[in-house]
């Protein structure tokens, strides 16, 4: 066990070298050549820091205070910067979450890969170029001659991540560290990148340290898994064992919070009252420049939806599918090009700002990013009562209502005079929900409202939304890229691609027995779709067919 390629023993990382402020508390980890070790944990678990420590890339305020990291028996802690640089080039390399920021935007991607060879080998220019071409073919990039000369912005997210992988592997390192490499990618692209990493590992015998928060991804790629919580190792197990027989409560909770890809039982039909509907909603960007004909982009085309009182309608799709465009049109944050939007019996699609104001009350939105959806400079109570004050509610009454709402979303009423930075991401998302509810809307638009949250917090917020819906009879328009989340919360689902509705129907039908090829492709690309995480078994072993 101690003769692995990478051996981390009792690694402790502390803030400012202070023993009481440890962020990684005694990590033990060992990876054999050709093995994939997944490091799993929620935000703040120290999984990325452990990887950065291995690469010698920790920010100066954080330092390892104890333990050892050995690569092929060589101690990395305390190695000279020059030696670390050498090792980073030749023996270990790392790929990151966001390939756009990891690449130099003003240099051609081929040259960026070649640069590594230029500094660390004595190959001739033609040999270097040949090696880069081979590598780019190895990561299955099309038309490598053209790719070589491309700039990062000319490539898709998946292609950029392939370039990053090619760059990481061009020196043939024995260890590849992948820090959430597929988190920023669409699910179909993610599936391709995961299979690429698997393939390269088998071909080259590279050991992979794979960092992720997504249990679905873990089930797809891991050999072994280490679960971290607040810097402490919860357990290390073979992936099959971990998913079937988690040893600690924390792992069990983590698995149980993963939304299942099997749609929940259909709810009984409720009210027939339509709270929101659109008819042939279109949004076109560009076109009609003065001197040049700008290219028209049809962000949404003929989108017709119907949302009943007390029901949840999901819009799923990959990035660029137009799902957020539809939400923003419905909120009138952008103006639709054509079509109608009926909210409570009146068409708001073409109303002027002044006529629109009374209608704003009926429809409210919760955004994705909890860090940015509250004004950091004002107390959360002020954020909550801003809407009601606009509609003439007296301040004292609005404040009293804000306290009630905070309690309704599961926060103490005393939170009212605190600033957003004093709350966690999940708490802020609750406050954002309270702010939306303060207007007593008929419709709540949730635009990727749980996508930025850790899976356990995500489960709590979803539960809250469901509970509020039952109590207040809200119609919820739920926009997400996560099919698992959609399967758990939606009554009906719309699948969008390139601005068009591909499939629209009851959740059980669309996600359970899809008719369209695109929906089928989406579902089959979702990582971990075969696992029933909450029941610790694959769906194929479930006692009754779902």
């Amino acid at each position: 066990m101690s003769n692995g390629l990478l051996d981390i023993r009792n690694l402790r990382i502390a803030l400012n070298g202070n023993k009481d402020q440890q962020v990684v508390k005694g990590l033990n980890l060992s990876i054999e050549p050709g093995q994939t070790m997944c490091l799993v944990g929620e935000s703040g678990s120290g999984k990325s820091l452990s990887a950065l420590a291995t690469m010698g890339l920790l920010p100066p305020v954080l330092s390892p205070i104890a333990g050892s990291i050995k690569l092929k028996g060589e101690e990395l802690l305390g190695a000279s910067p020059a030696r670390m640089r050498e090792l980073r080039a030749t023996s270990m390399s790392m790929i990151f979450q966001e390939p756009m920021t990891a690449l130099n935007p003003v240099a051609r991607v081929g040259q960026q890969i070649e640069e590594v060879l230029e500094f660390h080998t004595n190959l001739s220019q033609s040999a270097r170029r040949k090696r880069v071409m081979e590598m780019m073919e190895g990561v299955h990039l099309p038309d490598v001659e053209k790719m070589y000369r491309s700039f990062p912005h000319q490539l898709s997210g998946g292609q950029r991540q392939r370039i990053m992988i090619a760059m990481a592997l061009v020196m043939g390192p024995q260890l590849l560290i992948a820090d959430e490499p597929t988190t920023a990618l669409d699910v179909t692209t993610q599936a391709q990148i995961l299979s690429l990493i698997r393939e390269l590992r088998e071909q080259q015998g590279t050991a992979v340290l794979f960092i992720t928060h997504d249990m679905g991804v873990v089930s797809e790629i891991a050999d072994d898994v280490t679960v971290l919580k607040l810097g402490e190792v919860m357990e290390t197990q073979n992936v099959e064992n971990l998913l079937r027989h988690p040893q600690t409560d924390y792992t069990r909770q983590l698995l149980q919070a993963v939304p299942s890809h099997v749609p929940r039982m259909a709810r009984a039909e409720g009210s027939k009252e339509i709270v929101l509907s659109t008819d042939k909603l279109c949004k076109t960007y560009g076109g009609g420049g003065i001197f040049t004909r700008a290219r028209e982009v049809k962000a949404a085309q003929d989108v017709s939806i119907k949302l009943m009182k007390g029901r949840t309608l999901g819009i799923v799709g990959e990035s660029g599918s137009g799902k957020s465009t539809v939400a923003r049109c419905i909120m009138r944050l952008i103006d639709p090009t054509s079509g109608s939007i009926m909210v409570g019996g009146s068409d708001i699609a073409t109303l002027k700002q002044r006529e629109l104001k009374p209608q704003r009350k009926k429809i409210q939105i919760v955004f994705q990013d909890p860090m940015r959806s509250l004004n950091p400079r004002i107390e959360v109570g002020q954020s909550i009562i801003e809407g009601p004050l606009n509609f003439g509610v007296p301040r004292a009454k609005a404040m009293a209502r804000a306290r009630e709402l905070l309690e309704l979303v599961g926060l103490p009423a005393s939170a009212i005079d605190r600033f957003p930075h004093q709350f966690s991401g999940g708490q802020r998302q609750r406050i954002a929900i309270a702010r939306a509810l303060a207007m007593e809307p008929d419709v709540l638009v949730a635009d990727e409202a749980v996508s930025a949250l850790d899976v356990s917090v995500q489960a709590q917020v979803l539960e809250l939304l469901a509970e509020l819906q039952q109590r207040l009879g809200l119609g919820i328009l739920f926009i997400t890229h996560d099919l698992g989340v959609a399967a758990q919360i939606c009554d009906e689902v719309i699948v969008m691609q390139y601005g068009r509705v591909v499939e629209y129907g009851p959740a059980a039908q669309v996600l359970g027995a899809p008719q369209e090829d695109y929906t089928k492709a989406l579902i089959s690309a979702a990582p971990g779709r075969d696992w029933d995480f909450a029941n610790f078994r694959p769906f194929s072993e479930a006692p009754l067919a779902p």
Partner: protein
Amino acid sequence: MTDQSTPLAPRQRISPVSRVAEIVTSSPVVLIASIILLVVVLTALFAPWLVPHDPVRLTPSVRLKPPSETYWLGTDAYGRDLFSRILMGGRVSLVVGVAAAIFAVFFGLILGLFAGYIRWIDAVLMRMVDGLMAIPSILLAIAIVSLWGATIWTVLIAITIPEVPRVVRLVRSLVLSAREEPYVEAAIAAGSSTALIMRRHLVPNTIAPLIIQGTYICASAILTEAILSFLGAGINPSTPSWGNIMAEGRIYFQINPGIVLWPGLVVSVAILSINLLGDAVRDALDPRMAKRGIER
């Protein structure tokens, strides 16, 4: 399903006084700069009571004297005490500097807000701003002063106008990014008026960069005023300012170089201090700069 498992973080508020103290003592250089600036401001403020001689009284018998016990920094070509003149000259320079900064920031903020938030105003206003920025600022100032004559007000306007476009551009860029923030969109969805959105959600985002920009404008206005006076386009020579003291001393540089050097030194030190303080404020208010400091 109240979620009490995650307790709220403790209340914490930093008083403005301790914040200022923190910035001033952030490094020895900043501390020294602050002390120098404080001395300059206090001496200028109380100059009428501090001057050993009348700064404008002509005493032909003591023309161009070197520093002595009576005349600490010597006298100029008309026998006026140089030390008293520099002390009094600071009043004009500092008033011009501070007032130019306040006016430029005020007008720049208003124009920048509208340019950043309302599309059609943006197109028109920013082209005007581009036009204004194309003219060298000293040239523009000289033109304005020669058009309306040299009083403290025209000098002030002449110095302020070329500074406004820079502030407009800064505020506009801040507003352009702030208006895309989800909390601004949430306010739109809550039916807030444009005026309320500007006041509550946009203006606070511009405050920190404006304080910093203000310090630089202040420093550059003091310099511009000195340059204008030196070129003879500044305020009336009967009122001493750091610039016109130097301008008058220029011809006698070989006889008594102190007439040029002493005010020059005071201008340099004052501007250096303001810039250092501006840098310190920027580091303190801009989290990105602080981070860069850590990673260095």
